[in-house]
């Protein structure tokens, strides 16, 4: 990795679920503005890794700092930190009892104490950004999966987060909706946002990734630039994995 200060830094991080060793000695860092794509087989710990970044899960040993602040269970800074780190989930997780606009304004209004006018202005700006300004007054259930996921992205953007985490944002979508979400993510990448993305969409990865990461059984097995990662990965396991998913 070249230049820039790390905005996310894992230093010998281990994570257990009970007896199960989910993350094993993870050391990796992400620079400001960097786009990192993580892939790996099911159960390899990808979700666990990125959920540690915003404290949805807490690691058990090692040091994790995000935006200069150490993340640990019970830290007083954790609520502030989460405002800086947006997260987009596989299942969208929009608030079904709120309209699209309210989904976007509730965070800024309740957490950042923004006025309703300001929050709505920001919300409409980001709805524009994800190309669905006309859906503001609808409830999420009236939207297609692709639209819902774009609302979810806008919801995170409304918090003016500096880091965006994506956990398989397109794997719950029908194939014809995947691109509309990926396009929005590419546009977001073009704005210089720091992004950590768990995905198996290798076309997207090739387009935006600065760094590719391959995980297996709780370990980071390979870290490389996309060029090298796709053409000449060092580990055999990574090569086999890529062959398998690129076939499809």
């Amino acid at each position: 990795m070249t230049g820039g200060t790390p905005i996310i830094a894992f230093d010998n991080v281990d994570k257990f679920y009970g007896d199960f060793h989910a993350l094993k000695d993870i050391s990796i860092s992400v620079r400001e503005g960097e786009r990192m794509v993580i892939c790996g087989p099911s159960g390899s710990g990808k979700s666990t890794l990125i959920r540690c970044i915003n404290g949805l899960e807490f690691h058990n040993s090692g040091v994790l700092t995000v935006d200069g602040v150490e993340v640990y269970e019970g830290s007083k800074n954790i609520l502030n930190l989460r405002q800086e780190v947006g997260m987009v989930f596989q299942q969208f997780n929009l608030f079904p009892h709120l309209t699209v606009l309210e989904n976007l304004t509730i965070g800024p209004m309740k957490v950042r104490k923004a006025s309703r006018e300001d929050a709505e202005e920001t919300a409409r700006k980001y709805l524009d950004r994800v190309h669905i300004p006309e859906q503001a007054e609808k409830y999420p259930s009236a939207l297609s999966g692709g639209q819902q996921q774009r609302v979810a992205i806008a919801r995170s953007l409304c918090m003016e987060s500096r880091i965006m985490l994506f956990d398989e944002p397109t794997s719950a979508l029908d194939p014809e909706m995947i691109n509309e979400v990926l396009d929005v993510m590419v546009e977001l990448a073009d704005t210089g946002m720091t992004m950590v993305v768990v995905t198996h969409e290798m076309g997207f990865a090739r387009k935006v990734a600065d760094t590719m990461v391959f995980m297996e059984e709780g370990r980071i097995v390979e870290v490389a630039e996309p060029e090298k990662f796709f053409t000449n990965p060092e580990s055999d396991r990574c090569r086999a994995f890529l062959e398998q998913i690129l076939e499809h």
Partner: protein
Amino acid sequence: MILAPDTHVPKGRPLPQPPRASQVIDSVTFSIVLYAVIIGLIVYGAYSGAQAMGYNWQWYRVPQYFYTVTDDGFQWGEIMQGLVKTLTLSATSFAFATVLGLIIALLRLSGLVVCTAVSIGFLELIRNIPLLVLLYLFYYVLGPIFGFDRYTASVLTLGVFHSVLISEIFRAGINAVAKGQWEAATSIGMSKGQAYRYIILPQSIRFMLPPMTGEVVHMVKSSAIVSVIAVAELTTIGRNIISDTYMSFEIWFTIAAVYMVVTLILSFGVSIVEKRYAVSQ
């Protein structure tokens, strides 16, 4: 393109009809008739039994306990005053039970060992004492100690007893909200309290409304128990009237009917609220 005419006849083979007998049994008319027959039999049985023991029916004396019109003008009767007392008692107790129930549920779900233990302890304590004994405890033991009157003792008893049931409704409702909602709320920086208030509780109301209706009805009915410490609610009024007039059959039928009308109206009202809520989601 030609629009299809309204008189569209399905081309496919019609589905086989259920057997004639079950069609009749499933019909609304049949259930109403059956219901009427059963009620009729009960009333007839009670009536002829009462005749046989030479009971002197005096229904004409009942209306005065609902209202009277005299030279002084219109006045509500004792039963209506008792009903008002029953309703205020139930409403007060229900409000208290709801607040306490929410606190118990949140303690239980807090994930903190001490809080969970406190709430489970309270739950088991109250759940394993009969309502009547609880009332005696509040009225005869705690009442004199802390100096509260019979009405307060009643509110506390009913509130505490129902708070346990309501806390389980809250807990089930909260747990029924998908885990992803917590994660989404948390990831936009909401504290636990904010997540409950703005995201989780509003969604769990949908799951809680039906069992809560049941609890309101249950509360109105179980409020009758405070008649044993002579709080002047509906049941106590009924007893008083009977001891003055010896019309036990008429009055108990009447009191039962009043309870039934109230609880039916409540259920009906809440089902309307429920429908409206379901639409707005």
